[in-house]
């Protein structure tokens, strides 16, 4: 994949601002912004000044997943006059996500494969999906992504152990990395290159010194990770082979508060419920809403029986789904991108790193 050197460009901060102002006029631009009390959330920006330019923050609690699979989305609307008429709802907002991090890009590629059959940032998908999810695919097609390499990973990050960062190597359009006062731009796709050529006056080619400097930055970033998750593959093997003793899950189950947060904040979790809402006798909507395998009701069948009623089985399920080789085979990677969000959001301090560590110790 090394079209690397000829695809390296430089854009100055001022030019980047100018370029972004162009985009802001033509589409909804989402970027990490500082909300109340300085916390970071992904939010539509009005001017480029809104972006959290220092890039120094723990990942926003919610990943950009919500722009592709919102917590609630209307799938269709129905009306009954003499007969049922069904009108599907699709989100056709043109968007750009600016400043998305490599872990989240990798998570999107994971979702692309799951909902659409292959990576949707490529021009053609790898394979025909069995049941393509048109709601997801439409949103994804309408969204252009500019990623930001992480020269300074956050304190909860462990993407490096999950083959998901701190820099993207493939499957992206444009990746920016700050270098001194400017940004290095890596081009990962023809779509990305089109942007450069369409706005060539903003960019210049990187010099060979700058190429070297970028490598140094990348090396430097690698050294900032704590070695929390050096045992991912061990966890994968033991979980796949069923060699993790139930006592671990039992122990965690004692503390889990069934909040569902772990699924909701995880950028690769995508289970959903389907709920009809009657708005009148004759009309209504069908919605889908985020759901979580943490809930007992997730497997409730008529008559009241809950198939996965034991909390320990639900936790086991989560980590089996994330890490088991059976799923890696299906999804072409394991289901954790090392974003660290579950560390933030779990009431019980059950997170991917803590479980991997516990599996190792067991």
């Amino acid at each position: 994949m090394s079209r690397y050197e000829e695809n390296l460009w430089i854009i100055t901060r001022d030019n980047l601002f100018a370029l972004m102002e162009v985009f802001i006029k033509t589409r909804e631009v989402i970027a990490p912004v500082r909300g109340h009390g300085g916390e970071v959330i992904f939010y539509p920006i009005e001017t480029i000044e809104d972006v959290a330019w220092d890039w120094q923050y723990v990942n926003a609690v919610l990943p950009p997943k919500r722009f592709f699979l919102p917590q609630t989305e209307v799938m269709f609307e129905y009306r009954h006059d003499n007969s049922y008429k069904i009108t599907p709802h699709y989100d056709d907002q043109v968007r750009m996500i600016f400043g998305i991090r490599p872990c989240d890009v990798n998570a999107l590629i994971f979702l692309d494969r799951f909902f659409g059959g292959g990576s949707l940032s490529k021009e053609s998908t790898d394979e025909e999906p069995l049941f393509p999810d048109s709601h997801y695919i439409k949103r994804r097609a309408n969204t252009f992504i500019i990623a930001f390499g992480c020269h300074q990973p956050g304190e909860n990050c462990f993407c490096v152990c999950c083959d998901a960062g701190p820099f993207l190597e493939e499957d992206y359009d444009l990746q920016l990395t700050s270098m001194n006062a400017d940004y290095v731009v890596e081009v990962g796709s023809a779509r990305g290159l089109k942007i450069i050529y369409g706005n060539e006056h903003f960019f210049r080619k990187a010099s060979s010194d700058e190429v070297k400097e970028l490598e140094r930055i990348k090396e430097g970033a690698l050294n900032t990770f704590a070695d929390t998750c050096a045992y991912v593959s061990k966890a994968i093997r033991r979980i796949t082979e069923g060699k993790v003793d139930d006592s671990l899950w039992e122990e965690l189950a004692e503390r889990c508060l069934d909040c569902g947060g772990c699924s909701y904040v995880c950028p690769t979790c995508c289970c959903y419920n389907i709920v009809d809402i009657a708005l009148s006798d004759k009309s209504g909507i069908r919605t889908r809403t985020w759901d979580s395998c943490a809930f007992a009701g997730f497997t409730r069948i008529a008559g009241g029986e809950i198939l996965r009623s034991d909390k320990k089985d639900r936790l086991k399920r989560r980590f089996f789904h994330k890490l088991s080789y059976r799923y890696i085979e299906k999804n072409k990677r394991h289901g954790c991108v090392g974003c660290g969000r579950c560390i933030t959001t779990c009431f019980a301090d059950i997170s991917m790193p803590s479980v991997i560590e516990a599996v190792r110790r067991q």
Partner: protein
Amino acid sequence: MKDVLTTCAFCGCGCGLYLQIEKGYVTGVTPSQRHPVSRGRLCARGWHIYEFVHHPDRLKKPLVREGGAFREVDWREALDMVAKNLIGIKDKYGSDSIGVIASPKCTNEDNFVLMKFCRAVLGTNNIDNGASLYDSASLPGLMQSCGFGASTNSLNELEDTEVILAVGTDTTQTHPQVASRITRAISSGATLIVIDPQKTKISSFANVHLRLKQGTYVGLINGIIHIILKEGLINEKDVSRATSNLDSLKKMVEKYTPDYVSELCGISGSDLAKAARLFAKADKAMTVYSTGATAQAAGKDIVCALANLALLCGHLGRPHNGIITLQEQNNALGAADMGTLPDFYPGYQPVNSETERAKFESEWNTKLPAKPGLSILEMLSPGRLKALYIMGENPLITAPDVGLTSETLDGLEFLVVQDIFQTETAEFADAVLPAASFAEKDGTFTNIERRVQRVRAAVSSPGEALPDWKIITELSKRMGYTMDYGSPAQIMEEISHLTPIYTGISHKRLDEEWGLQWPCPDKEHPGTGVLRRDFYEGPKAIFPLIEQNGKGKEHFTPVQDIPLMEPPDAQYPFTLTTGSLYWHWHSGTMTRRSATLSREYPDVFAAINPQDAEQLGIRKNQRIRVISKRGEMETAAMITDRVQVKTVFIPQHYKNTASKVLLNPSSFTNAKASEMFCAVRVEPVMKI
């Protein structure tokens, strides 16, 4: 797309969350990462709080009763009709024939305006709020003992304390944020003592779980105090410096010897001693308690006993040492702060004090009644009132006796209910006024750690629904008294002007921070995390009560145990208790309309111990009948050792409020506290 930062309305923790708005609809939530309570976490209720907001059942137009049915009318007609009737009743029977029930779910601003309306316009002190049904104990109990009827410390302090004493609280179900702080504390080495008849999720972490007989809390705590005194474990310095009345406490607990207490409570004497020593010897210890302790006739005594214990050991009034009272409703404390109480103006300024009354009379430019009003239980007793104005409360489900409550509501000449859904109570109303939900209005809630925080309008209300404060000001105008507020921020200005503990609070300041913890006596004051001793000795004006009964000192309030109102007997050998489930909240009006939350427990059930189940031949999910002296209900059995032997637990959130049919009406005659226990018999329903 828009995200609006606001405060969760599903429990007293008061998490910060963003509502996600898409095309005028709330479509999801994002937890606030830096908010001191949520810290990036929400419980299942918080994550799904948006699901009820746009529910098709939301009230959209005012309704007035005509014959047997409701008719939709416009606001003008509805308000004219309500004003006319209230004026008529006031003229005919006098002000004190009208009562007002305020809401621990509504904002401070809503409650303040309603309180003002009640006192200044209706001319009565008959006002109380729904939280008093569960916890009429903390306020007088803590007030008597430590000056304020509120938690003394902040939630985050729990993580760094050494010993946590958790009393009558199924914390994971009701206050997940508190529970997670408790488990975190345990992970970093803290000790947990649980006093609770039930097994709960947190009790599994307890170093000592005192599984006492229902109704013997006071005896048990006195027993602990007895041991502490006997073994000389009291914190001499604190006790002599800052407290009064130790001698009478000593005398009171004399009879609570370990033998006596272990017999009374059904626990082991060594566990009791272990708990006493752990608590007393700790350098830092905090007490948390909840409705399991307060929703009974002895509630206030239990609170006093806990305060005695904490004072005695010096576990009060210092960082990581204090009492946290876990009110379930999101704004239970705020509603009380706003003076929706029969005997207090905002900020706990007594109505029977000349000076306070004079202050409010001159500010409000009207005469105010001096006599304290009726409590909520008194108001809900048949025959006490002619008219009732209920804002955001559903007493038919939440009050302990559905029979008596419906008799009362039936007997009223005029009933107004202001709510977001057509509740069971609203079915009795003469006028139903559609109100805005928390997602549709501006204002403030005050959480269990006294943190006053912003609630922000994120979407417009369905149909013609209006914020509660707005409805009341419109009504007030029609009754000849103008309240001219342009916005809730202006209401807050009046609140802070009249309420010493809120003096420094304004919406502007709250917008800049993560809320402010009262007492906040001036515009620069950063708020008060710990109600400290030195603070008590500070500006006296803020603490009229301390002044009154403690001479600036905290006070021991000796109490003794009283039996349950209706102890089990041979014919009714089980004790029925009721309480909350994690998945539902309060009367369930909102959570039962959330697809995700209601999926967990779609129907009511009765939980019994496996031992009893076996004895009675009851299988999982089998239909059983629960029978009390007053009524019976049929429901499905859940079998779990979380409930004690000879105990039945029925959650409170469901429409067939059958558990209420069974509860004890004597709590109404006693009338100051409701008791959520009674004696019942359990039998399987024969299969036909």
